[in-house]
């Protein structure tokens, strides 16, 4: 393959894509290539990296707004925000551990392209909810913008959200503007041990139903717990159900005491202090509960109460290891490497439970023959194709990364 295309500004980006569009050159779009093993394998002619489209356009901490060029590294963004006692609300997942890379890689553009949101999504919204505006170039080579830098904006259609999570198949962002939130003064985690999945999800939902603004609600079966970083946690030897509170100190103290009482019907409630809480939730964000192997991993999204039902239905067929985030509504599922990596079983369950499943980790060959993204039904499929055609009529941007034929 020929050398990497490295646009230095949006004009460069426009020129490159305009030429590719004219020549029907298929482009793989990457940032730092941290998600190269995700999605459907592609056949492309060139690779375009946004890594030189890097840097902060502006950062206004007093307004909780930051505007970044697409290829700015996520670690640099997080470092910059931390300096001002601020953070990304949605706590993006770091896939480094899962694919055997170093953690801390990836660009802000790739986070937005994948609408990549972690545990705090349950309280403060997904990546798409923090995205205020974008500039980008579509597959026709047209440079455009949508949204802006203000917190409320209903001027015209909200393409900003439509483009977030499109995996670089509609346009290449040159710039993204995000709202950020203040860092919390302190945090703690309340922990229940040894609950089965259904009871655990009930406990998490009860916590979420409280007025105490829980910012993380996860349940790990016994095996994934053993993979966590902190030996005091990984050696607990039981399943673990964890609820995070983040706020100013007096609020955390008050709320944890209230929640403890409320959760005591589920058993003894342990408490992780600030340090253990940081370690534990960083493990959640870095997917440390998944094995560093080639075992296939699914990410399943459904209604919280349906999470354990789905897992039990799959467990009837194959042994699985499950971790529930978002109070049960997001399941990270490791399954045996059978021929269809349980795709048909998972999707059969979802057909009656509602939701969708994405194959996150699997061999290239498996990702070629299995639908990586959840298949989309007829009319929505037509609309999806229409949207792809409207932005990228020649299908030159990340061709077929999400769906065959697109």
């Amino acid at each position, binding site marked *: 393959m020929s050398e990497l295309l490295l646009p230095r500004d949006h004009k460069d980006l426009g020129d490159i894509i305009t030429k590719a569009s004219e020549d029907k050159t298929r482009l793989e779009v990457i940032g730092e290539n941290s998600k190269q093993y995700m999605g459907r394998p592609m056949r492309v002619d060139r690779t375009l990296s946004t890594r030189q489209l890097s840097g902060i356009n502006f950062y206004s901490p007093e307004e909780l707004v930051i505007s970044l060029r697409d290829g700015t590294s996520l670690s640099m963004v997080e470092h910059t925000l931390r300096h001002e006692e601020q953070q990304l609300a949605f706590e993006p997942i770091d896939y480094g551990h899962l694919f055997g890379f170093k953690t801390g890689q990836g660009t802000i553009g790739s986070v937005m392209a994948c609408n990549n949101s972690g545990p705090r*999504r349950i309280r403060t919204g997904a990546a798409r909810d923090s995205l205020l505006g974008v500039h980008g170039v579509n597959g026709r080579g047209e440079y455009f913008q949508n949204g*802006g830098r203000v917190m*409320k*904006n*209903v001027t015209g259609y909200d393409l900003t959200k439509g483009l977030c999570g499109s995996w670089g198949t509609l346009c290449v962002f040159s710039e993204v503007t995000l709202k950020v939130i203040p860092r919390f003064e302190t945090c703690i985690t309340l922990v229940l041990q040894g609950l089965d999945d259904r009871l655990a999800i009930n406990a998490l939902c009860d916590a979420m139903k409280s007025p105490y603004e829980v910012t993380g609600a996860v349940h790990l079966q016994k095996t994934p717990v053993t993979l966590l970083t902190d030996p005091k946690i990984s050696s607990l030897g039981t399943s673990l159900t964890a609820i995070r509170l983040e706020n100013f100190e007096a609020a955390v103290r008050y709320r944890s005491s209230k929640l403890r009482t409320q959760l005591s019907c589920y058993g003894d409630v342990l408490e992780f202090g600030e340090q253990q809480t940081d370690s534990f939730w960083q493990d959640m964000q870095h997917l440390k509960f998944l094995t560093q192997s080639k075992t296939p991993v699914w990410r399943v999204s459904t209604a919280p109460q349906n999470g354990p039902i789905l897992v039990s239905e799959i467990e009837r067929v194959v042994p699985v290891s499950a971790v529930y985030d978002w109070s049960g509504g997001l399941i990270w599922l490791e399954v045996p490497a059978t021929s269809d990596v349980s795709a048909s079983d998972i999707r059969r369950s979802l057909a009656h439970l509602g939701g969708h499943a994405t194959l996150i980790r699997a061999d290239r060959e498996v990702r070629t023959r299995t639908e990586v993204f959840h*298949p989309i039904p007829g*009319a929505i499929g037509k609309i999806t*194709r229409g949207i792809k055609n409207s932005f990228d009529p020649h299908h030159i941007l990340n061709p077929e990364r999400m769906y065959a034929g697109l």
Partner: protein
Amino acid sequence: MSFIPLPDPDPDILKRRAQIAKSLAKIAPDAIFIEDEAGREAYETDALATYRRLPLLVILPSSTLEVSQLLAYCHKEHIQVIARGAGTSLCGGAVPTNDAVVIGLSRMRRILDINYQNRTARVECGVTNLGISDAMSDQDFFYAPDPSSQIACTIGGNVAMNSGGTHCLKYGVTTNNVLGVKLVLMDGEVIEIGGEGLDSNGYDLLGLINGSEGQLGIVTQITVRILRKPEMARPMLIGFNSNKDAGNCVTAIIASGMIPAALEFMDKRAIHICENYAKVGYPLDVEALLIVEVEGSENEINLQFDHVRDIVEKFAPKTIRVAQNDEEAEKIWRGRKSALGAMGQLSDFYCLDGVIPISRLADVLGWVDHIARHHDFEVANVFHAGDGNLHPLILYNANDEEELLRAEACGAELLRLCVKAGGCLTGEHGVGIEKRELMREQFSELDLIQQTRIKTVFDPNWLLNPAKVFPLTAPGRGGIEADIAEISMPGGESER
């Protein structure tokens, strides 16, 4: 006549009115049809009452199936359709054209399911915004976005306009609180997008539907995220010697690392008008008021108020008053929420909705005053300061044609000011017909065509909610691009 043109009706459609009514009645016999002129007059405008057009026909269906059947016919016969909730749009988002059928959705008002464990509610589109919260108040849950018209406006209309409200500073706007919709496409096909899970599959169609002003399809059911009410909520009322001090104080509060549940601003004129109307005890010797609401337990609230006080003191406040109980809290909010009603008793007014970066608040408020004076108008400011969402109310006489034209010119200039300050034309009301021709202030032709192409994907013949959102000369408007419209889905379909 005013600045904003509405397209001439298609004479052929007008001629066929009786026959169209007959055919539609046959298709949806259980729907209510309003054919007489007096009945249709009730639907000729919305809350932007300056603009009126008698619709061809008004139909009130009661089910998704009926909506689907009606749309399929209109699609086949090339008849334009306007979906209407409660008609509370302030931007002319539901103003009909003479050759369009209005589909009123007020009869579809069932709460279908409330699931407290999953924290979701599934409702029909005609349920009022407040009706959702009322349905779960006994369990201490609520639906967060709270536009000031929440007693009347429908959730379907909220989705169409991506409505906001007072407490969006903390809880987000409609698009952040909607998990799924049932959508009827213009050709009658019914699709379900999203559901009870937190993220969507494939492209974020929900993100596109929210705020698309009823131009991509008709939403008939909505699944919303519901939240547990806080233990308590208390507002603090702070009076200042100038708009500038109040504006700078807003920036300082947000910059301090605190996000209150609500942070509202009223200038002197608004304070006096609201106090005169609602008699809630607002101080009349101040130039500007802020209402800062915080939530939590009593102790948490007091600690947050201590924090706010520390900041406020730097701006030499004239008054600080904290609501001591529910009654006092209700009074403070009643004054604020009566603003539009109070204003309406006094004068006709034109309510704007521009947004600016909050660091520009003090600065821009000075310019608002300057521009209004230049156009010889009085303006009252009452708005969501925490997210920079201005609502200048231009007081004018709607029966005076010259004044109306001047008010619109003044409004346009104020909105241009917002865009120039780094903001946008509309934060929560929508574009509708009102700001349609101003879209080029914010968007280039290439920006606009990305949006008009999306319209074409969903509604290739541009039949849904005509003459809204895009300038009448916008690129791609009304046109079908073959490569977009030609759609068939390979891959994945076999696994459906």
